[in-house]
Structures are given as structure tokens and as C-alpha cells.
């Protein structure tokens, strides 16, 4: 599903900063992959590239067989909306919108009619046990509820792949377990999941683990 070949990323503001270097890896459909590395090692940068939000400075990135370098910005945006769901450490809900509206939003950008949007968003919120908070603002929710809302938003388009950037980083451990349980369920239902973490304990639970250090994929352990 995804293939990176000697991918590098260098930021050029003032001094050149190489964040990713010579990354080569493949991820297949239905995998559940952890990316483990210390803070600042380039995990988020890698995830952004995998999610078509960012582009490599070097190397080749094939997304479902397609060289991403040949995709227009619009194409990448549409693909992202249709096939990829993001979950962030700090939830990234739109503060002005209700829970339901936040979850509807990806469908809005796909041009789904309002009634259908609402129905699908409701179904997803039910799946993450958020039906009791549909008209609440994100600021009125607990961290766990926010993340469950964000997961519903990521799922509402029925994406091929979920990208989670430290989804439990801002949650207490019990709520974190709750969220991880939810992700496990989704994987069991067939969703491809790539999850960043710097928590070795969380990483160990996953079927596959990619270690990243200083922008280099130093270890790829299959178990």
C-alpha cells in the first residue's frame, strides 16, 4: 500500500535541517504498525509525508502504486480526504463547530449531501460512544471524549488507512487504554493503522514496530 525508497526530508530555513534521511520501508494493507522514537526524531514528519500532507525532499514515495511526486496538490488533498484519516495528539478539533459538525466536515469536502453527512457522522459517533455529546463544543469535552470525536471524524470517510500521531499523548493512562482499545477494534475490522508513539509499552503491543532515531529508520522489527 505504501512504499518509501530512500526518502529524505530537509527543512531549509536559514540552516538546512535534515529531519528524515534515507528512509526505506513498505507498509501493506491491514497492517497495524507502530512508529517509535524519541521526541524530535522525525516521527511526525514521517507521518505527514505518509498522509500526503507533506512531501519528501528526496527519494521516492509510492502511495498505492502511485508516485506522490506526480500528484497535484488538489489530488493529494482529495486522496487524503477520501482514503486517509488523521488522529492527532492534541485532537485538532475545530473549536467553532459542534461534535457532530466536526465529524461531518470531511464528508463536506467530499461533496456528500448534508442529510447523508449527518447520518454517517451520527453512526460513527455512536461507534465511538459519543452519541450523548453531539451538539457539544469541543471545549466542553474531556480529553478522552475529544479524542473519540477525532477518531469518529477520521473514520467517517471509511478510510483505507488511519494515521495516529501519539493519540494517547495528552490522555491519562486509563483513557489512553480506552482509545488504544478502540484502535485495536478498528484494526480487527480491517483498517490499516500506523501509530506514532514514544511509549515503548504501547509500542510493544503492536504487531509491527518501526524505530526511528535522528531521522533514520534504525530498526524494523517483525514479530
Amino acid at each position, binding site marked *: 500500500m505504501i512504499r518509501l525508497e530512500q526518502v529524505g526530508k530537509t527543512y531549509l530555513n536559514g540552516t538546512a535541517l535534515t529531519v528524515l534521511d534515507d528512509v526505506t520501508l513498505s507498509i501493506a494493507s491491514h497492517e497495524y504498525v507502530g512508529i517509535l522514537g524519541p521526541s524530535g526524531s522525525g516521527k511526525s514528519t514521517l507521518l505527514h509525508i505518509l498522509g500526503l*500532507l507533506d512531501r519528501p525532499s528526496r527519494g521516492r514515495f509510492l502511495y498505492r502504486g502511485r508516485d506522490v511526486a506526480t500528484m497535484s496538490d*488538489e489530488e493529494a488533498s*482529495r486522496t487524503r480526504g*477520501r482514503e486517509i484519516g488523521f488522529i492527532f495528539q492534541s485532537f*485538532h478539533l*475545530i473549536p*467553532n463547530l459542534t461534535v457532530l459538525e466536526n465529524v461531518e466536515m470531511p464528508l463536506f*469536502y467530499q461533496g456528500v449531501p448534508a442529510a447523508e453527512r449527518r447520518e454517517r457522522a451520527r453512526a460513527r459517533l455512536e461507534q465511538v460512544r459519543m452519541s450523548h455529546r453531539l451538539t457539544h463544543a469541543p471545549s466542553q469535552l474531556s480529553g478522552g471524549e475529544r479524542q473519540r470525536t477525532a477518531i469518529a471524524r477520521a473514520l467517517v470517510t471509511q478510510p483505507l488507512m488511519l494515521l495516529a500521531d501519539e493519540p494517547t499523548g495528552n490522555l491519562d493512562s486509563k483513557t489512553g487504554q480506552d482509545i488504544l482499545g478502540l484502535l485495536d477494534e478498528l484494526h480487527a475490522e480491517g483498517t490499516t493503522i500506523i501509530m506514532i508513539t514514544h511509549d515503548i509499552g504501547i509500542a510493544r503491543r503492536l504487531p509491527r514496530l518501526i524505530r526511528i532515531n535522528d531521522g533514520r529508520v534504525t530498526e524494523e522489527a517483525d514479530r
Partner: protein
Amino acid sequence: MIAPSRIAEFMSSGARNLLRHKLRSLLTLLGVFFGVAAVITMLGIGEGAQRSVLREISGLGLRNIIAESIQPTKPVETSSSQSGRRGLRLLTFGLTHRDVRQLQSLLPQADSTITHMLAARVYLNSSRVDARAMGVLPDYFSFFHAQVIAGRGLTEADEERANRVAVVSENLAHLYHPPGSLAARPIRIGQVFYEVVGVVRQAAQGGDSRVFIPYRTARTTYGTTSIRREAGSVEFTKSELGQIILRLPSEEDVPAAASLVRRNLEMNHPQGDFRMTVPLEILSAKQRTQRILNLVLIAIAAISLVVGGIGIMNIMLAVVTERIPEIGIRRAIGATRQDILYQFLAETVTLSSIGGVLGCLCGFILVPLASRFTGWEGVITPGAVIASLAVSWLVGLVFGMAPAIRASRMDPVEALRYE
């Protein structure tokens, strides 16, 4: 292109964002509000002024050319007679029947009529009435679209028999209450009484009060010579005709005919004892000044709209910065650059359109108010409403473009990292 239903969704979500910051939104749209209120008020008053000018002048008959006798400004000797007593002189001036014949042969397609202006004063019940008396032919009223609003007009029979009857202009009608009492109260011109038989409404007359009597009655009763006594001297003036009025078959014929008439009269009256009035020329001159005035007013309104637009742009740039994280999120969940562009444009256009609608409503209050205080007529045409709404919409589009483009060009990753 983007579907209308999507535009509506962008607009409604834009409107909700605006409602979240009511005071800020209100202050932001103030500029457009004032601009549009100014535009619609100025268009309204400009239109009103134009209409009243048109009505006033077309009352003079846009197909008419009017020439009238005046005392020459240059002192002329002509037939002034110094014989007899000192300080007694006879001044002959003005248009003559010869002029009428010449003009008729120059312009055979034109109808013509003549009037006889009287110097004699007008009295009702032995009190002076501030009105000018004139002798007119029966067809006079048709030249000026005058309507008989009470009693009757002057007839051929009145003319033939030189009847002592009079028709008064509308602004004298208040002297007759009830209107049926016209006949009961004869009017006096000089020393002669006339039975008042009718009242006419003549748009062009403005505030002037007139008493019309048959032409022949005027000629036979008062002659062509009038006497004016001034300190130490008596002046006799003699003027054959008051006015010559020519009516052309159509307005297009007027300019050429007017210059023909002007040339002919200037040739025959080098002393300048006549004055020409061409309503069509006055109208186009007035319309020219009106157009210039309108342009100035529009320019002022445009400046206030530009200032309003800059205000919107300024706020929207701040709004974009405020919402950078939101832009990142929207891009992450599938929004294209264009979606982001439309989102912010929709918000700005909604804002400026609300300003436009409010400004329009304000115009509906301001125009009648302004016309009350200035006495000008105020007219809000559907065109003005549409134009000002379109302009407010356009202001949002133009001045929202820069902030929206900035938002759409934002790098999604940087936007997501932005704190």
C-alpha cells in the same frame, strides 16, 4: 466550478463564524454599510433631481422653441422720439408679425402661436393680485400641455368676438372657493373686468401666476403701447408681440430649427430685443450638469466603499492568522486550497453583503429624509438597489481575495504545528 448548494453551505458556515463575533463583525461591515447607504442615497437623490428637471422642462414642451420680446439691453435710437415734452420717449422693440411670417416660411413644418404680454396690473375685489396677464390664442394651451382643471379654456368664439373672459393658472385657483364661484368674482386687468371661466394647470409655469385672456381682446383693449411712469419721466414702450412659440413635429428637429430661428432673429434684431428659450437645450444642459454631479457623488461613494473594503480586508487578514490551526485541520481532513479560498471568500462576501443589505435599508430611510430637508425629490429605483447590492458583494469579493489567498496558500503542516 462550484455548485450553488456548496456556495450556500460555505456562506451559512461563514455567517455562523461571523455571528460568533458579533461586535467585531458589526464593526467590520460598518464601512460597507456607510458606503452602500451613501451610494443608494446619492443615486436616489440624483435620480429624483433628474426626474424633477425632466418634468419641469418637459412642461415647457420639448418640441417648442419660444422667442419673446424683451427691452433691448443696448440703448438704441430706433424710433424713439424726443419730440414734444422733455423726458417723454417712445421705445419700440421686440418681435413682430413680420418675424412670425418669416419663421413660418423658414419652418413650414412647425406649428406656431403668438402671445401678447400685458403690462396692466391684475386685481381681484380691488386688491392687487401678483399675476401676469397675457393674451393668447386658443391653441396656446396645447403648446404647453396645459390642462383645464376647472371650468373651460379659451375658445375660438372667445377669440373671434374678443370676449372679456379669462382663464387663470392653477396657483390662483385658491382665490376661488368653492371652484364653482369662478364666475361670481370677476378679475380686473387694468380698468377692465373679465369673467373667469376656467383654471388651467401648466407644469412649466412653476410659481408664476398667469391670467390668460383672448389675444384679440388683449390687442383691442390694451393696444401695443404701454406707459411706464418713472421719477420725472414717462416712458412709452411699444411691442407688437409678446412671444412667438414654434412647435416642431419631433424633438429631433429642434436643434436644427433652433439655430435657424436664432440666426434669423439675430439678423432681424441686431439690437438684441428678444430672448430665445429652447426647452430641449435647457434640458440637455441640465442633464449634463446632473451627470457631472452624479459622477462626483458616485466617486465619493466609491471612496467610502474602498475604505470599507480595506477595513474588511484588514480584519480578515487577522481572522486568517487567528484560524491558522483550523486551516491546517481542514487541509488534513481533505480540504483543497480552493476549498479554503472559498471558505474565507464566502465569509467576507457574506459580511459585505450584510453590510450592503443594511446600507440599502438605511438608504430607504435616508432618501425620503434627505428629500424632505432639501426639497429635492428622492427616488430609489430597483436598478439602484441591485447596483448597490452588487457593489457590496463585489467589495467582499475583491477585498476578501487577499486574505483568502493567503489562507489557501498556507502550508498544511506548518498550519498544524502553529500555536
